[in-house]
Every structure is written in structure tokens, then in C-alpha cells.
């Protein structure tokens, strides 16, 4: 697998895109794997009682799935040194059906001396950003 080189990167360059889909089963799987059993992610009645339109995806599922485009591009999950996001909007997950989340990863900054690049993620559902200030610092050769 060819790994990207810092010297080849230009700020603003889009390095990866992916469309994620989350169905209810994906939320149940994430709940089990993460231990986050909050019923707003699997129980419509409960979600409604706390003022949500229905079941929503875990913010941490969106965060975790979005960074994977950077992992695959960088070629090593160990290259991710730092990753932070703000959660700006919930992602409702219909039943039946699935939510669609679009991820685009672009070069935000390159630090040749440190051997790192900052990759900025744009993560949207229905055209609105669901993660804000989503930045991934990766170590590259």
C-alpha cells in the first residue's frame, strides 16, 4: 500500500471522501461495542420523551466512522496523533431506512519539520454540518 508523503500535500487539497450510512442495526452494534447504552440511540419512545424527533446516532459513532477515511488514506491507524470534534447537530436515524452522512477530508496544514499534517473533516447530514472543527493530526513521512 502506498502511503501519502508530506511533500506531496497542498493545503486545501481534498484527500478522501466517503458516504456513511447508519441504520438502526449500526447503532445497536455501536452501543454494544462501545458500552454506550443510552436509550436515545435505540428507543423511539425514550428519545421522544427527551424532546428528540426520534432515535439519533451516537455522536461518537459519527466521530469514529468519519476519521476512518483518514486512517485508510494515511495507511496506518497509528498515524493519527490527535483528533478532536465539536458535536453541532444530531443525526436522526429513520426506521425503516438509514441516515446518510457525507465525509470530506482536506489538508488543513502541513508541518514538514514536525512530520505532521492537519486534515480537516467536513461532515454533513442533509447538507448541514454535524461535526464542527473536526481536525485530525497525522504523522506522515
Amino acid at each position, binding site marked *: 500500500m502506498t502511503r501519502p508523503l508530506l511533500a506531496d500535500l497542498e493545503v486545501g487539497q481534498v484527500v478522501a471522501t466517503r458516504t456513511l450510512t447508519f441504520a438502526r442495526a449500526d447503532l445497536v452494534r455501536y452501543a454494544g461495542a462501545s458500552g454506550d447504552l*443510552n436509550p436515545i440511540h435505540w428507543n423511539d419512545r425514550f428519545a421522544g420523551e427527551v424532546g428528540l424527533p426520534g432515535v439519533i446516532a451516537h455522536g461518537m459513532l459519527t466521530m469514529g466512522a468519519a476519521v476512518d477515511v483518514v486512517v485508510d488514506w494515511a495507511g496506518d491507524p497509528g498515524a493519527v496523533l490527535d483528533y478532536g470534534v465539536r458535536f453541532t447537530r444530531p443525526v436522526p436515524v429513520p426506521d425503516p431506512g438509514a441516515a446518510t452522512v457525507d465525509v470530506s477530508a482536506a489538508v488543513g496544514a502541513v508541518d514538514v519539520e514536525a512530520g505532521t499534517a492537519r486534515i480537516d473533516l467536513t461532515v454533513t447530514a442533509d447538507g448541514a454540518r454535524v461535526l464542527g472543527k473536526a481536525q485530525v493530526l497525522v504523522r506522515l513521512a
Partner: protein
Amino acid sequence: MVNLAYAGRTYPPTAPYAVGREHVRDFARAVGATHPAHHDVAAARALGHPDVIASPTFAVVVAQRAEAQLIEDPDAGIDFSRVVHAEERFTHHRPIHAGDELVTVLHVDGIVERAGLSMVTTRCEIAAADGEPVATVVSTLAVRGPEQPVRGPEQPTGAPA
């Protein structure tokens, strides 16, 4: 209301959290991560890792157990049904791999009242059994006061935790 006296508190180290190979794989599957280093020991070793390595957000599993010391403490006054997750950040000092025994120290870095919300920022310092720093997880929760709806159309920010 959130108990402001908890700001600045540091908790004793947690019991070790054993990172299992199948859990690393299951978590990777759950976030759609197919990179071989999460699943295949030989592929991980070819990249210089001792075993399969965890996805970048796996540390949340370890961190949330430590955070429970604060969140499940009735005296802290955090009503989890009124909490939305505002921010999350992972700093990896080295990748987490299967076989790690991780010990976490929870710090309450800040509790700030802002526009009817209490913003609670915690920091988990996660280290290996020998004390080597592994990851720092900073999480900010927004806790709505009793007079505020948990969520309304006028409050689009934040996703429930």
C-alpha cells in the same frame, strides 16, 4: 444543578482496563473501520505494532468508565438525561493495542456556567501498566438546567451524549 465544587478534582487511578483483541476488532467493525491493522495481527506487526491496534476513538471506551466516577456521583448533580455531548478530543501518545492494561486518572478540568448551561470538561490521562502515557481524552458535556428544555428547535447545537 452541577456542583461547581467538583471543578479541579482529580480521582485516584482506576483499576486496569484489559484491552482484548476481539474487542479491538468489534469496535473497529462498529465504526466501519476495515484497515487490516485493526483486525489482523500480522498486518499490525508489519507496521511495527505489537498486536492489533485500536481505532482512533476506541479510547472513549476506557475514558467513559473513568468518567462514570463523576457522572454517576449523585453529589456531582449531573442529570444524564439532560446532558448533551459538546466536544471530544483524543491525543494519542502511542496507539492502544490488544494486550494493553490501561490505568486512567480522571481530572475535572472545568465546570463553567454559560447561558443556562453547565459546561463540564473532563480529562482522562490513560497510561500503560508501567506508567507510559498512552492517551489523553478531553470531553465536554453540556448539562441543561431544569428550566430549559433538553432540546428544542432553537437549540440545534450539541448531540446527546
